[in-house]
């Protein structure tokens, strides 16, 4: 028994500090083309400044803070922290806590409920190389969801094409508004 425990402890020591490199971490996925299409639109605008201004206005419309802009590369990075409360999740966790309480223990399940989320977005706006007056606009987004104890609950890329479509719709509207204001 003692020998088994010793072996186990030594094994744990060996694997405890082991590092893992995710395989294929930087390999293009098969869905790359599809994802790129959902994230990209070609928009018509009078100038690069006009489309960048319209893009920044849309970010403000969507309650984002602009973090960085690198104009020569057309890169705009913005982020926002919003509420990530989910009523249905909280109901489930409430009942879990209730069951625990009835059993005489405190599970603290409610502490693991989603609380805040930080969304980061990069928009790259570049003049089309093929046609003047057209701009290739590509968006990538990801988010971190924190629970009530400020622990990271979810780390993910935002992939839903409908969300990207909604942003591009807003951008089209913004371009129209900017143009009509001039």
């Amino acid at each position, binding site marked *: 028994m003692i020998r088994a425990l010793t072996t186990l402890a030594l094994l744990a020591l060996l694997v*405890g500090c082991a590092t893992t*490199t995710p395989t294929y971490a*930087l390999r293009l996925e098969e869905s790359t083309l599809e994802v790129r299409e959902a994230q990209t639109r070609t928009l018509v605008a009078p100038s690069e400044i006009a489309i960048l201004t319209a893009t920044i206005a849309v970010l403000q419309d969507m309650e984002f803070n602009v973090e960085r802009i690198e104009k020569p590369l057309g890169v705009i990075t913005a982020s926002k922290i919003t509420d990530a409360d989910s009523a249905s999740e909280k109901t489930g966790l409430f009942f879990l806590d209730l069951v625990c309480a009835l059993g005489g223990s405190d599970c603290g399940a409610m502490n693991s409920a989603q609380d805040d989320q930080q969304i980061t977005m990069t928009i*790259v706006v570049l003049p089309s190389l093929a046609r003047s007056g057209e701009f290739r606009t590509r968006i990538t987004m990801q988010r971190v969801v924190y629970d009530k104890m400020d622990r990271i609950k979810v780390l993910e890329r935002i992939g839903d094409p409908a969300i990207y479509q909604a942003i591009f719709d807003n951008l089209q509207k913004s371009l129209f508004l900017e143009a009509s204001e001039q």
Partner: protein
Amino acid sequence: MNRQTRTTALAAMLLITGCATTPPDVVGAGTQLETRQAQTREFDTLDKAMTMRSVVATLQDLGFTIDQADADLGTITATRLDTYTMRMTVTVVSKTGDRIAVRAFARAGENAITDPATYQDFFIALDKAMFLTQNQVD
């Protein structure tokens, strides 16, 4: 204390302290030359700006958002959130003889990526983006 008890105690202590104290890892692991070779590719192109745009496009293809980009210094830092957080810094430098050197460095969580195959994958993706950019394909 008999021998067996002593061995067990020692193993338990090792288990507890095994990962505990580490000096600040400032200079990193690996040799400079090997690391540079795995992380760097040179391209036959005159255009630093186009190369940087291709790097941004590649990073977006790979699901990153851009934290910081500087066209003058040729540096781009990006983050990808997944089951692990990956951060990359890519530098684009003009070389003599109409060549551009691109160096990529990636970190997954607390581990620096040292596997040359991972960088190879990045440069394959960048090659494709460079081709699309140079051939003016939208």
